[in-house]
């Protein structure tokens, strides 16, 4: 088998693994990719990412805990989870297609940015108060629970809210804060 054919076959397999939902949570763990594609899977994902760029998609890596500041080790990659996400955001009018109301997305944006500003965790009550200023009371609790179920937020036994795996996979936190602060009000 030529080198080109080898990579073409591996990329096809990686695409199937990344696009199709195999577990409750979307995405694939690094060690699963290693088992299916071999230990050079980071290289295969890089090539796949290049292909996806043309379609405005990307291979996104979400590390366990904090993102490593330097080049991640193979060990860290094996423990990380890989997803395919949009690359350049989506027009706000298209957000409707995903089954989200404008209120839901605005509420999610508020909850995420508030938690970021509070160093990654905030009491649920405070987030509820913030949301209640613009959303009807009955929607606030329902929406927060929906964000938790979807994996955007997590809640501990002390009613503290954290950013969960989906926010880390889908939202560019730094840019969100920058955009919010850059708005002229």
């Amino acid at each position, binding site marked *: 088998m030529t080198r080109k054919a080898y990579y073409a076959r591996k990329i096809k397999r990686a695409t199937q693994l990344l*696009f*199709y*939902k195999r577990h409750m949570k*979307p*995405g694939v763990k690094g060690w699963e990719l290693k088992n299916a594609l071999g230990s050079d899977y980071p290289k295969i994902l890089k090539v796949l990412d290049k292909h996806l760029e043309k379609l405005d*998609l*990307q291979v*996104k890596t979400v590390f366990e805990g904090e993102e490593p500041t330097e080049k991640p080790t193979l060990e860290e990659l094996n423990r990380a989870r890989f*997803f*395919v*996400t*949009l*690359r*350049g*955001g*989506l*027009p*706000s009018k*298209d*957000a409707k297609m*995903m089954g989200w109301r*404008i*209120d839901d*997305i*605005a509420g*999610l*944006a*508020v909850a*995420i*940015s*508030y938690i*970021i*500003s*509070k*160093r990654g965790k905030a009491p649920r009550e405070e987030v509820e108060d*913030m949301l209640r*200023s*613009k959303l009807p009371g009955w929607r606030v609790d329902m929406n927060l629970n929906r964000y938790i179920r979807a994996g955007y937020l997590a809640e501990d036994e002390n009613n503290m809210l954290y950013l969960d795996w*989906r926010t880390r*996979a*889908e*939202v*560019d*936190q*730094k*840019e*969100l*804060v920058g*955009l*919010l*602060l850059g*708005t002229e*009000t």
Partner: protein
Amino acid sequence: MDVDDIIATLHKCFPDWESPQELSLDAEAVQYLASVIQNQGDWVKHRSTSLYTDPFLLEEKIQRLDKEELVTLFTAVWNPVIELEQLSISSLAEAMKYWSDLAPIDERWQKFGPMQVAAGATTREELVKLRILAEKTFFEELENFWTELKQRVGESEKIHYWDFVGADTYKETLDRAYMTSFLVTYGYATLEMHPLEEEVFIKPFGKPRSELADNRMVSVPISVSHEEWMRWKEEKQT
């Protein structure tokens, strides 16, 4: 917090401390001071990162933005995960095979209706076996127990409480203590207490004394713990 000032105060007072309590209070103060410095360090570190945002400033910004503006901002940085669910011909074929191999639900969840048994008469022995009736009535058992007590006492009129109640197993000992309490309550026997020697004796009566059950009712707590039973057993063996 002026850490230098606090350290200087601790340093100044340190030679005056003599007792371990005073020194450990000092150590505690230094420990708390260290945790304050650590928290301050974390705070400064976070403020210096690009993710630091003043919560009040952010709250103010969020309050002033309308829903549409917020959504426009958010969707610019939001890249939802792509996840597909799709049936393939092979998965359909596999599912069909599973379906054909699957036993009907009537077979898998067999219903067990109540068994029909013809009505008939039962005997006392069967009821005893089913533990619906006790083998002996309580008072028959109590009278037997009283007879045993009288036999064990013999000429000496009384018997040491533990020598009568104690048995080979702890469970049996508890049963005997329970029955003994009824012997005393219903006037078949009485207790003789020697508080100084910490000894308790049981004295059976020749005939049950019903007046005792009506008058001068006094509760006498006697501990029949496992430790006491073990001690009694060891003493008995020696």
